[in-house]
């Protein structure tokens, strides 16, 4: 398969050059090629006028190319210092020179205002701090060209601003910065030049002053944009799921959820906004019965289901689209029809009594594949063979097929292509108009605002604010998510 072809790109020193493109357009593959993690089949890379062949990350590092990965590449159980110096350790004799390393790290940290403490364990750090460690790692290696792969994906707007300040600082020191993103407003804010990629190839090079976000988006997608807007309200006054005082305390006595309460009515979508890692995952898992609440209650259509098992909750009509479909939603090495059974293995048409109904499950899988437009040659292929979007459509089809009354959707469009994203939004809207109560968790604030009937903001395991999706802007939500001005 061809991930990238005919990529043309020129980046000048002292500039921020943005690369934009949809999920799956080939941005990450391109960056990995530039960082020596993949070999290009043809074409050349020229650095400072010299043609280079980068065959490994070490090569790239030696040439002053550094990369901050989309997913943090940090070892939790090692210290910041160890994470930073790994691979380019200062030595005294054969010993690793911890003192020298500490001094150097503090130097860089001070120079760019990164505020990093060398001896803390990475597992104790927050998201923003981890990203600063990542940037420090790259600077420590004397990088002159910096590649940032979706650096803002996990940050709230305020942290994004801090990051951009740091980038301007770096730019003024003469570094070349490649900034990959699909968030156009950010790109327009920080970039000096923009290159658009679509289906693995560069389709346009523009200056931020010359384009609007809308035009950029159309270049990216190549057609009209889908928008996640919901039309007329379908909210009823029947309470379908009621959460009261839900609290979850971990082994170490830390509160992961404290006193979370909300109600979702039939036909209502409740959105939860929050920076990742503030208890959303725990909330979903507690509602699903995968974690036991320390205190508080969950009522489903009037029944107290707090003590019910996950299976019983699913059987009584809670459908679940998991945050990480690869880990929680699928059996990758099993055929599609077995994946159709997953989570519904106790219900028809998948089983009769204690036995499974292979024929029934297969027939119904074919129905889902047809109705939900899952692109696959057969229901016998392994789930791993499908693209992310098709996997997700299968999951949505499966979850909707047992006529549920509640849908819990965690990041339902993460990592899927534009077409599948639009399809999944349609399905969620359809679910809502059928009268389901939907709990929607998403990091995509546009999606959240577009689909929800009401929004609650989660911070450090608490619901700290309510927002009206009709009037709120992503920036305002972002502020509330950091708690920066939440107390005002």
């Amino acid at each position, binding site marked *: 398969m061809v991930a990238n072809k005919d990529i043309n790109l020129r980046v000048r020193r002292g500039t921020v050059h943005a690369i934009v493109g949809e999920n799956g357009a080939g941005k990450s593959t391109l960056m990995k090629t530039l960082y020596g993690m993949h070999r290009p089949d043809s074409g050349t890379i020229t650095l400072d006028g010299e043609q280079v062949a980068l065959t490994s990350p070490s090569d790239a590092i030696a040439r002053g190319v550094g990369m901050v990965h989309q997913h943090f590449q940090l*070892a939790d159980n090692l210290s910041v210092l160890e994470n930073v110096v790994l691979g380019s350790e200062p*030595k005294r004799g054969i010993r690793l020179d911890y003192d020298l390393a500490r001094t150097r790290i503090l130097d860089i940290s001070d120079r760019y205002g990164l505020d990093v403490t060398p001896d803390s364990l990475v597992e*104790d750090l927050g998201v923003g701090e981890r990203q600063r460690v990542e940037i420090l790692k790259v600077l420590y290696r004397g990088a002159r060209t910096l590649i940032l792969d979706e650096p803002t994906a996990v940050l709230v707007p305020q942290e994004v601003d801090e990051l951009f300040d740091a980038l301007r600082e770096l730019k003024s020191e003469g570094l070349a910065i490649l900034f990959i993103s699909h968030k156009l407003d950010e790109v327009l804010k920080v970039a000096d030049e923009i290159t658009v990629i679509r289906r693995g190839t560069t389709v346009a090079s523009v200056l931020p002053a010359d384009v609007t976000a809308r035009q950029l988006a159309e270049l990216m997608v190549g057609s009209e944009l889908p928008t996640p807007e919901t039309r007329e309200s379908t909210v009823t006054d029947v309470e379908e799921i009621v959460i009261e005082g839900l609290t979850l305390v971990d082994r170490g006595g830390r509160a992961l959820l404290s006193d979370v309460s909300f109600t979702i009515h039939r036909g209502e979508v409740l959105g939860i906004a929050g920076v990742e890692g503030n208890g959303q995952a725990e909330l979903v898992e507690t509602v699903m019965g995968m974690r036991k609440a320390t205190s508080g209650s969950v009522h489903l259509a009037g029944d107290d289901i707090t003590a019910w098992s996950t299976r019983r909750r699913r059987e009584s009509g809670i459908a679940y689209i998991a945050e990480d479909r690869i880990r929680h939603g699928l059996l990758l090495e099993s055929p599609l029809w077995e994946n159709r059974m997953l989570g519904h293995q106790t219900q028809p048409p998948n089983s009769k009594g204690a036995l499974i109904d292979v024929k029934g499950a297969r027939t119904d899988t074919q129905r889902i594949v047809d109705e939900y437009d899952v692109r696959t040659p057969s229901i016998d292929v392994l789930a791993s063979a499908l693209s992310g979007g098709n996997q997700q459509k299968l999951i949505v089809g499966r979850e909707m097929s047992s006529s549920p009354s509640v849908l819990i959707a965690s990041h339902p469009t993460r990592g899927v292509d534009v077409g599948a994203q639009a399809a999944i939004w349609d399905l969620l809207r359809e679910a809502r108009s059928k009268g389901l109560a939907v709990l929607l968790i998403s990091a995509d604030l546009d999606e959240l605002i577009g689909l929800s009937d009401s929004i609650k903001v989660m911070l*450090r395991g608490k619901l*700290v604010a309510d927002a009206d999706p009709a009037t709120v802007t992503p920036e305002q939500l972002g502020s509330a998510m950091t708690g920066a001005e939440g*107390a005002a």
Partner: protein
Amino acid sequence: MSADTVTPTEAVAEPPRARRLPASKGLRLLYLASVLLLLLSTVRIITGVTNLTSAGTVAAALGLSVPIAMAGLGGLWSERSGVVNIGLEGMMILGTFGAGWAGYQWGPWAGLGVAIAFGALGGLLHAVATVTFAVDQIVSGVAINILAVGLTQFLAAELFQGVPGGGATQSPRIDTMGSITLPGISDAAEGVADKGWFLISDLAGVIAGITTNVSYITILAILALIGSFFVLWRTAFGLRLRSCGEAPYAAATLGVNVRKYKYIAVVMSGAFAGLGGAYLTIVAAQIYREGQTAGRGYIGLAAMIFGNWRPGGLAAGAGLFGYTDALQLRGGGAVHALLLLTSILLVGYGIWLLVKRKTISGAISIVMALGVFAWYATTDDVAPQVAFVTPYVATLLVLSLASQRLRMPAADGKPYLKGEEH
């Protein structure tokens, strides 16, 4: 922020920040050791079982610990690089055979070298299977154990049968390797140990035990433990190796050649297991015998887990095995006396847990203490077969009481597939 669109419903508090307690490790260890010695001494006085801390027991315990510690050290190297190595038993078997084969022909030192080389070859095989072919690590380890048993039995039948003193299941005798005794200290300590004084004689017993007739391989093993700590935790090489066990894909992005480090670690792992095997063959028995390892590779692995994937911890774990084993071998009611010690330790641990408000674990611990004490009080001796299982039961107990406090390398046991990073 406009308060009319986003309505705060909760005041936001800063999260409490956890701080790590700095403590001088050396002092803590010394303190622990003294408490243990004090307890042992007390139990010795109460029960009158001098074997608890006699020089002979300590020397035997040291000797019995060596092969276990070396297997555990092998496990440490391998698992710190992210490869679970249950094939240690097989590598140790290869070591015993190598020691016997080379040892009887060219002397004990040659035996030692060949044992280490054979163990390393076993490690290399495990590395090929798990690193290059990404086979499940436990499966590969089990397969290597089966292969090692078969290979050595075949080779023993081929190479030892018909040789004077040898047979299908054993090698001819190996010359002694010799040992070291610290002249002045050894005798003096032995003298004090025989006096039976509270605490002082016990300490002297320990000193005499570790200064009399200590084999060269034991010294080598102790150096290997200390050296491994230095290499793994104080050098750049060690940091890279450990990073492969914690976050291999992150290490790869920084130019660390993950496969290379895993290969080195697993081969070293085999070499240490082979060294442990060499001790059994050259020092303990002076002969290769089929089945000589008797599962010590597995026990080494248990000792390493017990020691929380740290050299000091695994040495303590190996010491525990060696000590209970020594008591059982030397007899004289020592294992029976150990029941009393166990019950005291369990009470102490139970109280500590209760203070920490871990009520259930604390209660379980104290109930177990009472049970063990009742056993001690109502019997006069422990059957040899029951004494035999003591270390294994102890391991199970310790693991079930402490396993939640253990922290293995984050990527331990997971195959590393190049180019599949997310």
